[in-house]
């Protein structure tokens, strides 16, 4: 078992944990945190799995780099929507 495979397995555990947290947590912000961590777990699998077979692989690393930036912009947009919702009188923890 190489380091890369170990981190891919850790990523799998993190994805499963966040799926559970995403489905059970009530507060919208906690759902968003769970979603972010799920993304990180997917990134770990995406980088770890190919590197297990062929060594350092720049292609998945570049894809994950774009993924990180897209994830932060999506999170920022989701937080804007959440704040707008709260301002309109909504309850973030239904």
């Amino acid at each position, binding site marked *: 078992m190489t380091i890369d495979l170990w981190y891919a397995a*850790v990523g799998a555990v993190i994805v499963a944990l966040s799926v559970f947290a995403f489905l059970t947590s009530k507060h919208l912000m906690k759902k968003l945190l769970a979603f972010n*961590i799920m993304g*990180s777990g997917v990134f770990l699998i995406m980088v770890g799995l190919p590197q297990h077979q062929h060594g*350092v692989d720049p292609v998945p690393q570049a894809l994950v*780099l774009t993924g*990180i*930036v897209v994830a*932060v912009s999506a999170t920022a947009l989701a937080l804007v929507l959440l704040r707008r919702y709260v301002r309109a009188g909504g309850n973030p923890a239904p």
Partner: protein
Amino acid sequence: MIAFDILLGLGLILAASGVFLSTHLFRSVVLFVVFGLLLAITWTRLQAPDLALAEAAIGAGLTGVLFLDTLGTLRKAKQKRRSKKEPRP
């Protein structure tokens, strides 16, 4: 070095479950930042220094700031709602 990797992986899992288990939202966000920093170390272990740079700046820094700022907004909105309710019996 293997021991370090095992500890780091377990730390990632622990930080993630800490985010989900804590009842305080503030603590969740702080643990999320911790998770981001651990992930940055993980990227260097996976020989991806570019990802480590991006993760340290974005995952730990920017996202944490965004979440904390929103948390402050939510808290103020809650106070406002409560103070508006109280004067009326």
